[in-house]
């Protein structure tokens, strides 16, 4: 996760399988990720850097390997990262839509005798 420096970040936490728990010790307490329920918490990082954490609720055999990382960067850098991600996502979506359209066209042409 990349977050801007000195701004309040609001987290809405949920899960789509078993319960997990969000825990970056340097950025505040734990907050559970419970399927079917959205928990809210927030933090405000005041120093640039990389913060590491760990899932804090037994979630299966790879619970120990479920790590989390927060990279705190100045706002400009965050904005650049955000725009780049948004552009990447847009490109990927367009690509996906194009592929779907092609598949649909192929299927409709093969179906018609």
């Amino acid at each position: 996760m990349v977050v801007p420096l000195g701004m309040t970040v609001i987290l809405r936490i949920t899960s789509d399988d078993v319960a997990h728990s969000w825990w970056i010790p340097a950025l505040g307490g734990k907050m559970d990720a419970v399927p079917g329920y959205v928990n809210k918490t927030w933090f405000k990082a005041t120093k640039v850097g990389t913060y590491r954490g760990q899932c804090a609720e037994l979630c299966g055999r790879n619970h120990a390997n479920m790590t989390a990382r927060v990279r705190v960067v100045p706002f400009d850098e965050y904005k650049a990262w955000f725009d780049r991600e948004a552009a990447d996502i847009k490109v990927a979506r367009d690509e996906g839509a194009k592929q779907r359209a092609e598949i649909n066209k192929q299927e409709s042409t093969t179906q018609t005798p």
Partner: protein
Amino acid sequence: MAITSDTETTTARRTLARPQILSHEARPEARGWTSWITTTDHKKIGIMYLYTVLAFFLLGGVEALLLRIQLGAPDNTFLSPEKYNQIFTMHGTTMIFLVVVPLWAGFANYLVPLMIGARDVAFPRINAWSYWMFLFGGIALYASVFFQPPEAGWFSYVPLSSKEYSPSDGQDAWIYMVHLTGLSSMLGADQLHRHDPQHARARHGLGPHAAVRVDDPDLRVPDRARAVLAGRDGDDAAAGPQLRHALLRPDAGRARRCCGSTSSGSSATPRSTSSCCPRSASSPRSCRCSPASRSSATRRSRPRPPASPSSACSCGRTTCSPRRCRPSCSRSSCSRAS
């Protein structure tokens, strides 16, 4: 002459007043190991509790050592993740359900009747039964070592402990263990409660009272057991029809924030599981805001219909029946009033 007849009547009255103990059969006293498995003596049962607890404590200790060996070095491959989860589940479950709870049962069984001067607990056979349920609950759990032990932690939070995510039979073994030991500790605690804790505190100091209080949370174990069972989504063989709604499944839409799980270890205890989830907990005592319990509360607050004169009693209670208001009103005084 007069003196003799006087003495005779006194003797007769004394004989009548003496309580009688009728024996229907006389069994030879059991000796050797049969005396232990057939006993209903609270001292023997207390000793059996303590030795069984010691055995489970050693097993749990060995498990703790295995865990610590794995954690002793980074990237250790002594235990696989699967085995690690299984062993820490067995360790936690053992220490909570097979050591801490029955440890008190052992001491309380041995000491409380002696401290309050009772001959035994209220129902010695039920007391023996609760010991055997505890033992077989532990055996049910440890039998899973031979196929696949549970690996969802001693707290077994759903959904991780549900069939979907823990398909192994070990989780079922865990549930059977919770049922047996839960029922065992409830019945055991009930034995001690029946010695009337108020009287115990007033007459015998705080010792036995404290033992009874410590056993008190055990009376809440069924909430926990039911919740856990419901987490198996009702398709488990052990789940009765009344348990088929997913009480603690958070995605069933009924959960409160605290129900899913907790950040602090203490909230994972049975006590707070039942007390912090007003709707999902199942006993009427803990679910104060459910419609059923609200209606029962209003029912209670409504004035009672006047009792018929025949049920009035010399002790002043209008709804007194000979059975209900002992010991403040004895059977004889009730019948006298009616």
